[in-house]
């Protein structure tokens, strides 16, 4: 009975928090807007019922009074924050007036947090009165009391993570179902933006380019990066020099890389011109001016910039291999190349996974390289999804369309990532 009541309190608080987040995201529904406070009220009712059952509430001689006081102070702080949004307070203290946008944003949170913190204090007093012995703390006590400093220390991180990764993402996804133009609008309009997106030629071209760029860049950076790392691993002289040279392009931004390679691949000045001046008059190499192969021109620049970094990661992995393994394989007379393929590479699995994630995230967000090198040209033949998002969101003043495209990009990342993460990290728990 007790545990059911405790569960009810915790669940209604959690659901209330979820409803609150959904409302902040922009779901405008009368029922939902009532939900956060209604659920808190429900939790409070359950708490009152618990008090009624106990018939007394010992406040001063309470095991958990310190914690309860803490939550009351927290509620007070939240209330102060909401006060800062009041016009009269701002008039009295001009110093805080310049941050009024911040106060306005925080006010919405404070209105929710004040009753929640007070509720925490009340339920802790209940628990403290009831459970005088500490044999096995109840659910509420475990949630609100144990490891509290760690939980508090995690709050800034949790706020950022939830704010940026959860609320902002949900907000974007929700608004991709609206007709938002220059400014976001909240009226739900269905999948209209997605219908338009998937019937747009430019979007298909972008996806196709991303697929080519992604597949090639994944394979080549891994192969080239690993090969270079292996070569450097042979204890050659001047390793540091080579490492520096190969890593140097990584210090350049994609914008600079794009411009440099734009010049190198320009037929009049670059590679084509040099080869022609060597006597091969009919040599043609103009990837940036040929719509069929322009994406490979971008790929070359991307590989040049990124491979050095992959090499360094691989080299670190190779250096982490115990030298005894090499000695053992030499004793057994296994050829070096076989040692690499059958022993070293499987041992480097974690390094490969890290590298894969880094390469993959680089692929999805490729934008600046294309902008600097080709601006999506010739025509639309080197467009990429991220550029589509930018062009429609800001250039076309059509937020809804940009959000729909970015939601699809997110889905494209999640579809391979979720099964992968499940296999990779799910297994570790069992094994």
């Amino acid at each position, binding site marked *: 009975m007790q545990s059911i009541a405790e569960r009810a309190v915790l669940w209604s608080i959690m659901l209330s928090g979820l409803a609150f987040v959904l409302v902040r995201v922009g779901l405008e529904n009368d029922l939902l807007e009532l939900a956060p406070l209604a659920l808190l009220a429900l939790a409070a009712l359950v708490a009152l019922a618990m008090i009624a059952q106990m018939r007394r509430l010992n406040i001063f001689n309470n095991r958990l009074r310190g914690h309860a006081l803490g939550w009351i102070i927290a509620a007070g702080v939240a209330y102060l924050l909401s006060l800062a949004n009041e016009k009269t307070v701002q008039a009295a203290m001009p110093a805080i007036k310049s941050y009024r*946008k911040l106060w306005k944003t925080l006010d919405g949170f404070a209105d929710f947090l004040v009753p929640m913190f007070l509720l925490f204090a009340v339920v802790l007093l209940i628990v403290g009165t009831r459970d005088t012995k500490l044999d096995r703390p109840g659910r509420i006590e475990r949630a609100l009391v144990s490891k509290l400093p760690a939980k508090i220390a995690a709050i800034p991180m949790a706020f950022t993570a939830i704010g940026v990764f959860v609320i902002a993402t949900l907000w974007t996804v929700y608004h991709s179902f609206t007709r938002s*133009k*220059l*400014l976001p609008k909240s009226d739900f309009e269905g999948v209209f933006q997605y219908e*338009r997106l998937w019937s*747009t*030629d*430019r979007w298909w071209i972008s996806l196709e380019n991303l697929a080519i760029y992604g597949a090639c860049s994944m394979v080549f950076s891994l192969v080239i990066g690993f090969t270079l790392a292996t070569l450097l691993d042979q204890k050659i002289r001047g390793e540091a020099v080579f490492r520096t040279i190969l890593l140097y392009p990584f210090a350049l931004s994609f914008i600079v890389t794009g411009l440099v390679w734009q010049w190198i691949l320009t037929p009049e000045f670059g590679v084509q011109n040099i080869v022609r001046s060597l006597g091969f008059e009919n040599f043609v190499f103009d990837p940036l*001016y040929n*719509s069929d192969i322009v994406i490979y021109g971008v790929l070359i620049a991307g590989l040049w910039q990124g491979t050095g970094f992959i090499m360094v990661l691989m080299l670190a992995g190779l250096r982490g291999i115990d030298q005894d393994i090499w000695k053992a394989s030499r004793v057994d007379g296994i050829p070096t190349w076989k040692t690499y393929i059958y022993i070293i590479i499987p041992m480097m699995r974690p390094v490969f996974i890290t590298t894969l994630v880094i390469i993959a995230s680089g692929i999805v967000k490729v934008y600046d390289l294309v902008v600097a090198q080709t*601006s999506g*040209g*010739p*025509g*639309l*033949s080197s467009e990429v999804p991220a550029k589509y998002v930018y*062009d*429609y969101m*800001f*250039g*076309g*003043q*059509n937020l809804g*369309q940009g959000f729909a495209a970015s939601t699809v990009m997110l889905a494209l990342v999640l579809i391979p990532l979720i099964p992968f993460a499940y296999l990779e990290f799910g297994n570790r728990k069992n094994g």
Partner: protein
Amino acid sequence: MKTLSKLMAVSALVSASAVGAAELEVTHWWTSGGEAAAVAELAKAFNATEHDWVDGAIAGSGGVARPIIISRIIGGEPMGATQLNHGRQAEEMIEAGLLLDITDVAEANGWADIINPPKLLDACTVDGRIYCAPVNIHSAQWIWLSHEAFAKAGVPVPANWDEFTASADALRAADVVPLAMGQQAWQTELAFGALAVALLDQTTWSAVNIDKDAAVAAGAEYTRVFKAFDDARKLAVGSNVNDWNQATNLVITGQAGGQIHGDWAQGEFQVAGQVAGEDYTCLPGLGFTEVLDTGGDAFYFPVQDDADVEAAQKELAALLVSPEVQVAFNLKKGSLPIRGDIDLSSANDCMQKGLKILAAGNVLPGGNISFTQDTLNQMGDLMTAFWNDHSITVADVQAKYASIIENAD
């Protein structure tokens, strides 16, 4: 130290506001030679008042600058004043109350009577209130022809688009690219718009561009426009430049026969010291119909929480429309003035042609006025794809164009 410098900034602000002078940051994308000379005229006129003009030029055409400007206004970092093309670009910002209502300035200076054509002021008006000060009229339906290139090819300078396409072979033989065209989407879109105005009668044109009738856009009259556009893309093979002024430069130096471009190209000819009628020829309406559209530039004034700034903004608004500034600015820029009552007899040949058409009232609303930026973006994508990918047929592109018109709002 930080507090001290803040304190000093505050006191500086206070002392500045005591005399009522303000600094206005003005953002615009006028960065080519002719444009920069023109904007300097505006700055000069504004600096002559007690206020200061802080120049905020953003390089890289409207497509790059507009998102930056709009993000700043929406993001709460508004500038003092900014160039935009008037029309639907600012619609939503006005609805959100981010732009200053300058109706009082307009009424005090009688804009309703002096601004010609009156459509320009309509484009600045939302629910009866005026939000922008138009500064010039730009029309896109011009072709600029290089006398040098045609002399090289040994053919006379053409008098319309048909003659131009007929002389293309001779130009190619003389190693001249017939048509110069920058690779940015808006330039191909502009060329298409110019061909549409030139080749269609007004009813057909308005059915598509004002009433958004998709059936007409898919019809036989429009097929003619797409065929001409198909010719144009073939004529432009070999013109590998990006910015419009680089394309104009090809015409100025005789490397290209002609360029379909707006009248702002004229500023470049002027900076290069060329004379209309001797070194180059301009044909409004591509030599067919003497009709121009009336897109153009206007200044908007983002709302700022400061009475002095607001006063300065209103002063700038009045100044931009004043006769002296209009003459100085438009002569440098090669665009047409927004008022019919000023003397531009010092203007050159091409501008006189434009003024005559304007006076006769042969004007159409510009693309920015009838379509949203979103629709224009879609058209731009379509035209760029067609322009560069010669495997897309006329029928394909017309069908897609009609579907964009159908979905336009």
